[in-house]
């Protein structure tokens, strides 16, 4: 029954949403590529992915500018306002996640030539898979403006946090068993952190989608601060054991 009075404006909102979903889908593809690159020591792939980041930055800025233009020209309110405010934040989450994939590739270059034992490889694969699933789900939930799917991301992220924890433990075991040297161990700990952060960005996208749907805001601005220990915390835990 809704008669559309501002169709050009609302078309532009949809255009921005689709543009965001498109770059988010791009990041969803980057994650497994970054995982392959680090597991296979693929230097050429790393170079290619790192160079490709400029395109993500360019598209993010372009989408952000379209959002600013809407605010300046259309005075959005209610769900339109929530969509724009969320879009600006989601763009930042996506852009940052692409950077994290780049960081994984840079770490791959630093540990090039070092053999990783099977348990570490398995955990890297699992973290990569889970981060990809999270990002893909966040993208879908945003594109379909689905608050329920968005809310489920927090539980999915808990599993990724658990893998992160296991991985830090495995690094310590490998290091004490002399199968991995200190420099590589540090790089790996950082890589685990990158995956964990990608998961957090996916959760943020979900939270922002929930805000679009019904104005929901999380009680704590940074959910990971409560129940997700940072890498230094995890290392400290291991040292205490």
């Amino acid at each position, binding site marked *: 029954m*809704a008669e*559309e*009075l*501002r169709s050009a404006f*609302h078309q532009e909102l949809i255009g921005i949403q689709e543009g965001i979903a498109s770059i988010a889908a791009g990041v969803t593809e980057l994650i497994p590529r970054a995982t392959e690159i680090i597991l296979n020591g693929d230097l050429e792939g790393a170079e290619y992915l790192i160079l490709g980041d400029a395109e993500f930055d360019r598209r993010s800025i372009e989408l952000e500018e379209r959002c600013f233009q809407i605010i300046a020209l259309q*005075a*959005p*309110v209610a769900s*339109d306002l*929530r969509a724009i405010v969320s879009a600006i934040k989601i763009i930042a989450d996506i852009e940052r996640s692409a950077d994290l994939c780049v960081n994984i590739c840079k770490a791959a270059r630093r540990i090039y030539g070092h053999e990783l034992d099977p348990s570490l490889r398995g955990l890297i694969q699992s973290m990569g898979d889970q981060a990809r699933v999270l990002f893909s789900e966040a993208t879908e939930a945003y594109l379909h403006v689905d608050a329920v799917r968005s809310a489920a991301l927090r539980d999915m992220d808990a599993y990724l946090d658990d893998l992160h924890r296991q991985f830090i433990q495995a690094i310590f075991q490998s290091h004490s068993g002399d199968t991995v040297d200190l420099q590589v161990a540090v790089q790996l700990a950082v890589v685990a952190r990158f995956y964990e952060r990608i998961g957090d960005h996916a959760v943020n996208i979900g939270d922002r989608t929930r805000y679009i749907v019904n104005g929901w805001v999380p009680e704590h601005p940074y959910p990971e601060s409560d129940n997700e220990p940072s890498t230094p915390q995890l290392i400290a835990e291991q040292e205490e054991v």
Partner: protein
Amino acid sequence: MTESGKPMNIVNENVVGSDSGLQTIASSERTEVDTDTPPFVFETIDLNVYYGDFRAVRDVNLTVAKNEITALIGPSGCGKSTVLRCFDRMNDLIETARVDGRVLYHGLDLYGPDVDAVEVRRRVGMVFQKPNPFPKSIFDNIAYGPRISGMAKKKADLAVIVERSLRKAALWDEVKDRLSSSALGMSGGQQQRLCIARAIAVDPDVLLMDEPCSSLDPIATTRIEELMKEIKDEYTIVIVTHNMQQAARVSDRTAFFSVEVNEQSDARTGILVEADATEKIFSTPADDRTERYVTGRFG
């Protein structure tokens, strides 16, 4: 005088008689009011307004809090101006108009048999869409109300009231050197501020504004909006506006009215859909109809 906010003054003493009788009315109304809730200047209870057989608004339950700016928004024919006119009993002046339900003013029934509509209109000032200064001098426009209501005993008192009113309406500096020139020579924005000053001059409790900026340019509009925010500490303001951004900019609370069309009879009736804090209405309105209206998804 305004500070007292005594509703008893609007009661025609000739009809009711003694003061004690008035207080009985006032106190019996007040017992219903929860002390935790903000003091309401107006409260409508199941308000229905008819023009002849035509029901303009149906079952409106709305509160207006003291020293707040309440904006009434909605499409044409939604009854927002009709409801505004109930607050100073201007509907009385329309012969076919009939008001059902109750309009409480500081807890006192505004349409009670013993209420003097003229006194109501002294306490509840109105500013109209088009500036309507009297064809008199600037001074006399402001002095008119105080003169006829006997507020000023001496000429000097009158000058004080005129200056104070013009200052409150942020007009004094612009007109102080030409108080005796005709108000009709002022710009539209100045004329509208003059009308606000004129309304303020009789020391009202409430200012009702029916689209006060729709004939003004953006700068004059901004001046009026700033003025509203400046004077809301002293007055309670209810504004009807077609400009949603204006409602968003100036008001503390927003009431959204809509039109309900009866499928069978094609009768159109105004209803109050939702009233809430303005930031809520424009960020996360509770009702889908409000959402569609403010985002332009509804004709």
